């Protein structure tokens, strides 16, 4: 399989988020934290949320990884500040669909900056990098729901 041009992967917006990640700090008064690592490559993040009622009052992360993983989680945390839990979950589903080449998801403007990561879907070995933050988000939402149920 031919690799598509690198320019479709390394967009300026991605490199900008990699250099200046948003919300990369320890979150005070977090209510849920998920540690996620990709043992194959060593990418490792901790996603921290403060959930109040049915929305995410604050989202931050710490960790390290490649430009794709860092840009993706940076954009994601910017997007979910103040979002309802169901909207955050839907965003994760939509972005996952985008990574798996869903043409409809690619047209969805609600993804905002995250659409810059669309090119990753053409680099199969890098899709995991883009999804690490969103996988952590969905784990966090599940953990929150199960803790609430108890």
């Amino acid at each position, binding site marked *: 399989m*031919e*690799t598509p*041009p*690198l320019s479709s*992967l*390394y967009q300026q917006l991605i*490199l900008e988020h*990699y*250099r200046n990640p948003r919300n990369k700090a320890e979150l005070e008064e977090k209510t849920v934290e998920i540690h996620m690592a990709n043992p*194959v*490559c*060593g*990418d*490792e993040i901790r996603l921290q949320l403060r959930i109040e009622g049915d929305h995410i009052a604050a989202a931050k992360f710490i960790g*390290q*990884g*490649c*430009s*794709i993983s860092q840009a993706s989680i940076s954009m994601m945390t910017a997007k979910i500040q103040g979002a309802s839990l169901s909207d955050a979950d839907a965003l994760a589903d939509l972005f996952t669909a985008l990574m798996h080449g869903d043409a409809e998801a690619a047209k969805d403007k609600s993804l905002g900056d995250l659409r810059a990561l669309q090119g990753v879907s053409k*680099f199969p*070995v*890098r899709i995991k*990098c883009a999804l690490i933050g969103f996988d952590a988000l969905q784990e966090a939402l599940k953990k929150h729901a199960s803790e609430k149920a108890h």
Partner: protein
Amino acid sequence: MTTLDPTKIRREFPALDQTVNGKPLVYLDNAATSQKPKAVLGALEEYYRRDNANVHRGIHELSRRATIAFEDARAKVARWINAPEADELVWTRGTTEAINLIATAWGLDNVGEGDEILISTMEHHSNIIPWQLLARRTGAKLRYIEIDDQGRLVLDELPSLLSSRTKVLAVAHVSNALGTVNPIKEIAAAAHEVGALVVIDGAQGAVHTKVDVQDLGVDCYAFSGHKMCGPTGIGALWARKDLLESMSPYQGGGEMIHFVGRDESTWAKVPHKFEAGTPNIAGAIGMGAAVDFLTGVGMDAIAAHGRELLAYAIEQVGSIKGIRIYGPESLDEHSAVVSFTLGDAHPHDISTILDAEGIAVRAGHHCAQLVMKHFGVAATARASFYLYNTKDEVDRLVEGLDIVRGIFG
């Protein structure tokens, strides 16, 4: 000394003759696995086409031929590392299984609470985890030889780490993550003074240079076929015969028994005692063919070629702005591996960009997370060379790294 013509050698490796992403393949991931020459591919096919039968069992002609080929391969591989006897070579799935074999079969009977196991922070996970498991099962303590800022073992500390409590010392011959070549002879002599068993992870050692287990003065040497032009799924544990004979079996099953009773059984002779079940017959024959191939080229010529490529790569790659190379500065202590980072470009991004140029390198922690931790990095990119690589390919790597700089610079 004979020299080696990589252009000619390349013709023996079909996989090298292809384009990746429209560019001729530059394969620089040899420390992960090497490509295979026609002679090895041919040996595998010949066995399956003509001689395929189980070994040491059948009375029929095919079984006889398969057994001869299988045992001939053992003798070849044993001779290649200058083992005193062919029967001291136990076939395994690779280096990992060989280390697990010794850590389990020898370790459980000989290591106990209060004893110490000495390894190093340079080790591949396959030479850490089996010892962690042994320590956990026996109550023994795991201790580490540290590495310095050039990725060399801090041997000044060795005398204080070794004591009568040290039951085993296990270190790599050559570091997969850094290319460091360890002074095994010196280390083994020190360990033997306190009566410790010396186990060497030779996965990266028995690849570029002639290994002589007797000269090294070690007790066990573990290595893999696939890193030295042989097939995957085959490797070997060499160990002193008296040691193998004193050890309990590793796995139970067919092939490894002498007589079987309801409650008690007796074991086959070494090395078969450690080879339960149908072995990787084709793999062993393929590894034997790899030894023939490497011997034909000449291990001295391969070593010299590796040194030449390493010197050129360190000079060329090292002159790129923003590059940091990890590993020993002295080329005498450095195998044909260049582990590096480039500015703030993550090694994964480096690898993706190089792949688009048809260049295969490894990016990640190289199964050596303790090494990465030592240098304060999450990952490095690693270019590793073998007998078929050329200086032109090093130039292609440098051009590829210029593209990385263009994107991340």
